[in-house]
């Protein structure tokens, strides 16, 4: 049985300008121990999907559909029922580590609180567990870190503390929302290596939300590509990068400049801008920017199975093969 089953999840926000349709009926499964990447640009609904899973939407937000965690429906649970799950069975780390920590509490107290609250450990026991955990996320000198406040640590160190906190109760699922986006590249690489190791050692499943295709390539088993609150493509990571089946996925992959390639000439940018979530187009939301769009694209395509474990939302059977105008030289 899948650890997490999301079915037809929609998230809408009531705003003075109208209803913003942030997530429009997405479905996916997550297996134990698996790392699923949720990829898309800003406004694609990836963060709101994660927040909806945990009942953390803003007050004007409304989630519908079904989210089953180990068979238990999460949508509609009361706050007290949810808080028994949050932090113990499902935990989340956010993009900005410094502001996610409480500035008035020492690192140690914040970690201990998690254990005394969820695991009913005594303080002394909790402290030694917390210290062990800081050691596991390779924070230097854990004993003295426990007595420090968040402002005394760097961004990378705070993110290690967040990861330690997320893993303290050995959750079944860790949701990581852009965990390295705010960090410098050398620190990002340390944190990604750490996350990769931790997911190998434990059976924790990870839902990794990111816009960085390089991070996805390194860490994820499967990838779900989102656009305008809908799934565009779902595939195993090697299939997605090696043979994208949705024009948006192809467009994303082609538009990133790559460190390992010398591209002469121009980047293949995707023209135009993402659609307005207040007035989504009736048909395929990507059609106005898609180089292959044709008449049928004015009808909304279904999210169809292509092959085992592969789905796409596109009327095209296959992306037409094309001669690339630019010369790409691999090094």
């Amino acid at each position, binding site marked *: 049985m899948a650890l997490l089953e999301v079915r037809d999840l929609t998230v809408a926000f009531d705003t003075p300008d109208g209803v913003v349709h942030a997530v429009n009926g997405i479905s996916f499964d997550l297996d134990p121990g698996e790392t699923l990447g949720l990829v898309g640009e800003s406004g694609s609904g990836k963060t709101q999907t994660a927040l909806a899973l945990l009942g953390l939407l803003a007050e004007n937000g409304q989630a519908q559909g079904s989210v089953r965690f180990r068979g238990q429906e999460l949508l509609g649970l009361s706050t007290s029922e949810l808080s028994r799950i949050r932090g113990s069975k499902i935990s989340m780390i956010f993009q900005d580590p410094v502001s996610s920590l409480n500035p008035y509490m020492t690192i140690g107290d914040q970690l201990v609180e998690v254990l005394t609250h969820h695991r009913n450990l005594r303080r002394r026991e909790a402290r030694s567990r917390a210290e062990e955990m800081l050691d596991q996320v390779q924070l230097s000198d854990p004993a003295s870190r426990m007595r420090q406040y968040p402002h005394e640590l760097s961004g990378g160190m705070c993110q290690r503390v967040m990861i330690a906190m997320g893993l303290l109760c050995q959750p079944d699922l860790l949701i990581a929302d852009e965990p390295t986006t705010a960090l410098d590249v050398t620190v990002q690489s340390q944190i990604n290596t750490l996350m990769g190791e931790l997911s190998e050692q434990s059976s924790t499943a990870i839902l990794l939300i990111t816009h960085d295709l*390089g991070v996805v390539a390194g860490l994820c088993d499967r990838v779900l590509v989102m656009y305008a609150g809908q799934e565009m493509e779902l595939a195993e990571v090697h299939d997605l*990068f090696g043979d994208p089946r949705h024009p948006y996925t192809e467009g994303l992959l082609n538009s990133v400049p790559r460190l390992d390639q010398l591209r002469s000439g121009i980047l293949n940018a995707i023209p135009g*801008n993402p659609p307005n979530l207040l007035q989504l187009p009736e048909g395929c939301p990507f059609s106005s920017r898609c180089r292959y769009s044709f008449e049928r694209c004015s009808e909304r395509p279904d999210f169809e199975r292509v092959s085992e474990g592969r789905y796409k939302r596109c009327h095209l059977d296959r992306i037409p093969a094309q001669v690339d105008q630019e010369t790409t030289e691999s090094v």
Partner: protein
Amino acid sequence: MRPPVLEVRDLSVHFRIDTGRFFRHDYQTIKAVDQVSFNVHSAETLGIVGESGCGKSTLARAILGLVKPVAGSVDWLGENLLGLTEEAMRAKRREIQLIFQDPSGSLDPRMTVGDIVAEPLRTFYPSMTRLQVRERVQGMMKLVGLLPEQINRYPHEFSGGQCQRIGIARALVVNPRLVVCDEPVSALDVSIQAQIVNLLKDLQKKLQLSLIFIAHDLSVVRHVSDRVLVMYLGQIMEVADRDSIYLNPRHPYTRALIESVPIPDPVRERERSRRSLKADMPSPMNPPSGCVFRTRCPYAIQACSETRPALETLDSGRQVACIRHRELADGLEAPDPEFVDQ
């Protein structure tokens, strides 16, 4: 080689900050930019990379006279900008323009696009007629890929990518020769980022601009730059032409930076060998003695802590500030196992 348009020599920018409490002052100096020298040639793109706090933005601001350096010189077409009066400097700013990171935050929300783009024209060419200004502004908008009929719209009606186009139009409307771009695409989504990168490259070619392209994203810098300058804690670690930097980095920090960037290809990404750097960047208030990178460097030896390595110029024109770069080029392995796969 053509003579450089911009020559920066031994430029240092220091900030004095008060770390005392209550009535006790305790002043400390941060060397945000520390004895930096480099040239920019005509119609060339110089990429400047480094992590946050390495001084790349301060360097840009110092070139434009927006912060006051404590030492050094900035020669623009042979004339030292640092000796100029405020008024004379303002005139030079027509020739040297700046593009900012936050596209919408750097535009006045109460001005129309037309007024935003026209403002520099009105400052530098007060004799232009309204019609001439309007024509020039519309021509500029077209050049950067905006619709001229949007001239009366306000910034909030545009997306981030379009706002960055407005910022570019405003910078280019007065025909500058050098444009300093401070993280121009890092706030944009990848698909939009590619549009803006293409636009900048295209305009540079058309208008024969020199660009200083400051970014933390090494992949973007590789794509746009002719030469690349790598900074760390206010100092230059390495300068070389683009392919030498990326294919054959000589400084251990450059190597570490390049190894850290994830590649969007699962096959390659997973078979890469990677040596993570130890620890975080030290505080700029209290930089290490000798080589500033030595505390994180896998190849550091005793001598590295003694004197600051000079920025040595090699035959190829490459410059490196590392006392062990020759040994490294000969295939020196990292001796300290603590650094490997930490």
